Structures are given as structure tokens and as C-alpha cells.
């Protein structure tokens, strides 16, 4: 038996501290290596932290809701069979296990380790859970298995196919490959599907001076989460920094809708996740940026910093508020590569597996508020970028084509841009280029 320290991990270079949101295990609970041990929140993202080794959670040093510096010891694990290599920087301290107060008798170890609760809320049948246990598939891995059942449910066939592929090595483990699946519940655009309203995310708090002003029960006082506070800060800073101008263009998505409809089944079969509209839009934007690189810049004093790469951010509503994961080097990716990257980010956002690096370094942002039914919006620029594209809901509309009336799939794109550097001419031309890329999409493209 060896005692292993669990430390507050450093989630990114600029992160100095983290808050413990939730311990997933109680003292005395058995935990597997890489099984989710706790959830932490930094000022960038919320993350689930895997256990550094297998063992029993012997002691929780830092309770929930406490914020500590990175590398602080937050818990101890008792491991079986001597010292176990650990991700903790400090060497495991070898000392006799302390008797744990609440349960002096070691808790009986169940013959079958129950799987953790699914973070996505996706339903798994008893049989699928059983197969996952037998095959040693963790809940986080199970969450990545493509489901072909109703509402994206993983059927017996799906998991057996996954197990077979896993054994034959034709499928990279999701953690390494990241070639995961999108949930069927979000078939059209990348978006988390279970977005809790802000009021549920923010926890009630009692602040006497505020309570005097806002008496109960007419008022609730809620604590803004780190992510919410950061959002507020960034939004105010952005409108103070950049004179926003918005241009709105109409896009005829009929060809894209047709292409997606014709290829979605084949695509899903090949790639293992659903084809959404997002990669089409991302692809069109990246191509337009290559033609109008001044959109892909930032301003430092009186200097323009032109980025010779495209890190494309995609705004996503998550349970904890707005998050903008970034596709790095989007300019190097073809359509499939973009689709995989979008799917990977969507999935990791939903499963709280984003790393701080995933949300840094963006050079241009797309915000798809169409998933909420919004037709036209005026998004706020994600600083220090100089433009942001907002995409509305695709709706069938009567359109005039060659003086004939036709039914077309129409969407409105808004680009907000920073008029310090982008004028109406450049903004309009860039957006029109995006429009043309989508309207003239290469219908012969196959997967």
C-alpha cells in the first residue's frame, strides 16, 4: 500500500489557481486510474480531473468550493501493491494509511465497479453498461461511442462494433485520436444541447448588504461563475475597445442543404459522427480569410498584427455559459479535417474535457445563434480579434431566381467588425465571399 498525493493540476500556462467544484468520490471510495476523481473550475474552463492512479480515496484535503494554487495537495489516494507512478510532481510519501474517521472498517469492494454517471445525460441500456464494464470501457470512453439508436442511443450493436474495432486496432482510442462522435441530439449545428438557463448555473448566495436592497422572496441573489464573470469582463472590454459595425447578408443554403442531405448517411458511416452544417460554414470562412487576410488581424497601438494562420473560434453555449473553443490552424485542414475538429471540440465542450489551450489563440470567431431560432443577431467581437461572424437559423423562404419564384433554404449571416481597421467595403466583400463560397459549394465533393 502506498499513499499518493493528488495535486491541483496546472491547466494552462497562465493558470495560477483552481476551484474545486465537486468531488466525484467520497473518502473510502475505490477509484480507477483515469476515472474522474473531481471537477475543478479555473478562470478559463471547467474540467474533470482523472485520478492519477488506482486506489482508494484516503483523504480529501481541500473541500468543494475552495480555491487553491496549482500544485497544492488536494487529496491522498491509497494505492494497492506498492508505489505507483503518478502524475503528481511530488514523490509519493510512504506512510501508514490513516484510519479514516467515517468508516473505520474498509468499505467492501463491489465485485463489479459501477461506471460513473454519464456527463452527457445520454441513456445507456443495462446491456450496454454491462458490456462496457466487461470490456473495461470507462464512462468517458463510452460517451465517445457513436450511437445509432433513437436519440443517439448506443445500442448493443454499436458497442459491440466499437469493441471489435478497438480490439482490432482500427479505431484509435478516443482520448488519443479525438475522432469522436457528435451526439445525435445536436444534428445540425455544433452546440451543446443541454444548456441550462443562467439562473440554474449560478448558485444562490446570501450577501447581507445586497439583501437589504433586494429583499426575499421577491429577489434571488446568485453568484456569477468564473466563466460568467469572464464573459462579462470580455464583453464590456470589447465594446469599449472596438467601434462595432454590423453587415448582414442573405445566404441561399439550398445547395449545402442538398449536399449534406445526400451525403450525411455515407459520411456518418465513414466518420462515425453526424455531418452538420458547421464544417460547411467553417470551410467557407477559412477560404474567405485566405482571400481577405486583413480580417484575420489584431491591433497593437498603431500597428496591425497580421496572423498568417487561422485559428477559428466557435462560440458554444455550455452549461456554465459561453465558451469559444478554437480550431487551431484551420487553414491547413480540408473539409473532413475541419468536420473532425468541430466534432472533437463540440464533444469535449459537452463532456467538460476542454483544456485551457483549446480556448486560446483564436484569430476569428463564428457564433451560431441560429440553434436558438435567432434569425439575425449582432455579435460582439471576441478581442483581440477584429471581426466575428454570426449565423442565424436556416429557414425555407420564397426566393426569386431568374424572375421565377422558388422555395430556398435561406439563412442570414451578420458580421460585426472593428471599424478601426475594417471598413464597410472590406467587411462587405469578405462576407460576400463567404456567401458565394457557400452558394457555389462544390456539389461534386464526396467523402
Amino acid at each position: 500500500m502506498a499513499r499518493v498525493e493528488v495535486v491541483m493540476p496546472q491547466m494552462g500556462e497562465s493558470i495560477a489557481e483552481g476551484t474545486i467544484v465537486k468531488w466525484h468520490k467520497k473518502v473510502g471510495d475505490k477509484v480507477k486510474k483515469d476515472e474522474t476523481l473531481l471537477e475543478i473550475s479555473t478562470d478559463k474552463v471547467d474540467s474533470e480531473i482523472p485520478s492519477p492512479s488506482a486506489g482508494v480515496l484516503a483523504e480529501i484535503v481541500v473541500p468543494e468550493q475552495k480555491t487553491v494554487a496549482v500544485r497544492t495537495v488536494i487529496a491522498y489516494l491509497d494505492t494497492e501493491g506498492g508505489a505507483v507512478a503518478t502524475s503528481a510532481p511530488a514523490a509519493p510519501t510512504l506512510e501508514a494509511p490513516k484510519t479514516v474517521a467515517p468508516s473505520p472498517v474498509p468499505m467492501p469492494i463491489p465485485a463489479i465497479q459501477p461506471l460513473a454517471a454519464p456527463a452527457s445525460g445520454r441513456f445507456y441500456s443495462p446491456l450496454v453498461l454491462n458490456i462496457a464494464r466487461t470490456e473495461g470501457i470507462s464512462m468517458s470512453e463510452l460517451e465517445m461511442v457513436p450511437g445509432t439508436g433513437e436519440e443517439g442511443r448506443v445500442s448493443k450493436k454499436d458497442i459491440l462494433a466499437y469493441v471489435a474495432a478497438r480490439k482490432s486496432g482500427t479505431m484509435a482510442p478516443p482520448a488519443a485520436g479525438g475522432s469522436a462522435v457528435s451526439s445525435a441530439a445536436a444534428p445540425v449545428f455544433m452546440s451543446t444541447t443541454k444548456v441550462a438557463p443562467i439562473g440554474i448555473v449560478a448558485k444562490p448566495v446570501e450577501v447581507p448588504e445586497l439583501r437589504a436592497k433586494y429583499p426575499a422572496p421577491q429577489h434571488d441573489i446568485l453568484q456569477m461563475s468564473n466563466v460568467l464573470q469572464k464573459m462579462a469582463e470580455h464583453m464590456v472590454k470589447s465594446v469599449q475597445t472596438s467601434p462595432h459595425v454590423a453587415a448582414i447578408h442573405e445566404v441561399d443554403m439550398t445547395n449545402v442543404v442538398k449536399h449534406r442531405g445526400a451525403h450525411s448517411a455515407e459520411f456518418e458511416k465513414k466518420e462515425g459522427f453526424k455531418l452538420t452544417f458547421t464544417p460547411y460554414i467553417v470551410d467557407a470562412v477559412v477560404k474567405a480569410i485566405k482571400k481577405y487576410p486583413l480580417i484575420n488581424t489584431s491591433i497593437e497601438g498603431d500597428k496591425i498584427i497580421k496572423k498568417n494562420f487561422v485559428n477559428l473560434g466557435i462560440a458554444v453555449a455550455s452549461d456554465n455559459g459561453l465558451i469559444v473553443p478554437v480550431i487551431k490552424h484551420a487553414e491547413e485542414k480540408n473539409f473532413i479535417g475541419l468536420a473532425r475538429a468541430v466534432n472533437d471540440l463540440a464533444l469535449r465542450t459537452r463532456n467538460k474535457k476542454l483544456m485551457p489551450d483549446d480556448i486560446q489563440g483564436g484569430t476569428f470567431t463564428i457564433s451560431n445563434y441560429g440553434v436558438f431560432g435567432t434569425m439575425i443577431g449582432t455579435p460582439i467581437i471576441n478581442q483581440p480579434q477584429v471581426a466575428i461572424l454570426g449565423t442565424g437559423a436556416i429557414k425555407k423562404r420564397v426566393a426569386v431566381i431568374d424572375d421565377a419564384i422558388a422555395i430556398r433554404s435561406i439563412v442570414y449571416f451578420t458580421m460585426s467588425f472593428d471599424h478601426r481597421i475594417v471598413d464597410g467595403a472590406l467587411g462587405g466583400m469578405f462576407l460576400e465571399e463567404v456567401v458565394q463560397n457557400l452558394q457555389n459549394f462544390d456539389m461534386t465533393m464526396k467523402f
Partner: protein
Amino acid sequence: MGVMTYIEAISKGMWEEMERDSSVFLIGEDIGEYGGAFKATKGFLKQFGPDRVIDSTLSEAAIIGAATGAAVVGMRPIAEMQFADFVTCGFNQLVVNAAKMHYRWHLPVPMVVRLPTGGYIHGGPYHSASTEAWFFHVPGLKIVAPSTPYDAKGLMKAAIRDNNPVLFFEYKYLYRRIKGDVPDGDYVVELGKGKVKRGGDDTVIFTYGSTVHLCLEAAEVLSKEDGVEVRVVDLRTLMPLDKDLILSSVRETGKVLIVHEDTVTGGIGGEIAAFICESAFSALDAPIKRVGSLDTPVPFAPPLEEYFLPDTPKIVKALRDLARY
């Protein structure tokens, strides 16, 4: 080996057992001269005489009571109900006396009660009921429900030789519509053993009696049109249930449909579903589904009866729902 109808196989089973064992005798309404309401015992009076083919008074209580008494003193009676519906008049004799004799006095009660059962014949509410679930609830009774001529003969012979009261549900709809190979001579189909009628590992149907044939049709549709392979298990005996076969089939498929002609609420399917949930929950990949009749008396009007009863499209739909889940 000869091809015979379902009712011919039942008659053949009784005939062979009466030849084989002189303690076997028949009792029922109009079973002698008339040969029975469905002619299952035609010719029996001439062959075996009035001591062994007894035309009874018009009383199911008397028939079952007399049969129970005869069984207790060492005879092997076969009591005929003209329609399964009429068994209600003999309910007390069956449930209170026949079923509990062995428990109370260690007396074997080797009797068979034949119950021509079910709908699909436009017989209306008093001649079409499925009554097996009433007796399924009574410890001390065995229940069989064959779907083919082969099983009908083999189960009849096994029922006659069994030392417990056995309710033999025979499907009027199948009497002359189903023909099949029936070996000459002696064979029995062991009580308590189901049979896999069709292989498949996507979904399993547990069924019995008339609906076995509908399930086989539906399974073919799924195989041809959907590429889904459905296993069809004919339970054949309802009490005792073939639990081993049920569990192994659940474990080998993961999805379960239970089909019976009886109404869904309180039907045997509910007990099978509960047993599966208790014993093989971790093998289930979908909620267990049931197809049965609507919770009303059996309607007389043919279109209403069709609407009321299970049919192939209803089973196909349930199978597709399961496949999609």
C-alpha cells in the same frame, strides 16, 4: 409420418393414450354420439365404448368435479370444455379442488382439461376468450398451449401421463387451418420445454399458441425488409415456464417482445417481462415490449375483432420499434 391437422393430432394423441392405458377416459358435453363440438372425439364412442367416453350433464362443475374425483382414485380422465370460456362454471372444482389436492393430501391428480380457446373465428365475446392467465396464477396447475400438430399430439400424450392437473389450451383457429407432419406412434413433448422456431440474434419474441404463426410471419418481414433477425420462441408450456430458454434467449439477443392473443393487462406476458427484469436486467438493451389484445371483451363484428386481436402488422411495428431503439 403423416400430415394431419391440428385437431387430428389432438385426437390422435388421445386415441393412442386410450389404447395404451385403460385408465384414460373422456368426459364432456356431446363428446360421444355427436363426437364433440369440434369433432375431436368423433369415433371414440364406437371404439372405446360408453364407459370410457362419457356424455356428461350440461355442467362444467360436474365434469371437472367428476374428473377430479376419478383422478384421485387412480383414473386418468380427459375432461372437455366445449369452449374455454365455459370453464368459469367449473372454476371452483379446478382451482380449489384439483389444484390443491396434492398440496393438501399428497394425492396425485392425473387429469387433463381440454379448453378450445381463442378468437380469429368471429365467435363473439362468449366463445372466443383467452382464459389461460386466470389459471396461470393458481399454484398446482400446469398449462400447455401448443401451436402445431406435432406439439399438440406430443403435449397431449405428456399431459395425460402427468400426475398433475394439466390445462390443455387448444386453438380453435388452428384446428383445421394448420397442417403438419406428425410421426406415427409414441412420442411425447416434454412439459415445461419451449422451442426455438426461428433463429435470430437481434430480438427475441416469446409467444405461444395462435400467435406463434403471426410472429413467424412478422420475423420474415423484418428479415427481408429490414435485415433484422428475430428469434421466435414458442413457449409451448406456460406453467411451468421454460425459464432457462427464456434467459438464454434474452442474453443472446438483448431485446424482447412478448406476444400473446390474450389481453395485455394481467396477461402472462407481464409475468414473463417481470421475470426477465429480475433475472437478466443487465442483458437488456431496450425496454421489453408486449403485443396482445385490447383490454375489452372479444368483439363479434369481424372488423372489430381484427382490430382487437394481434396481427402481423402490429407485431412488425413492435419489432421495428425495438430495432430502432
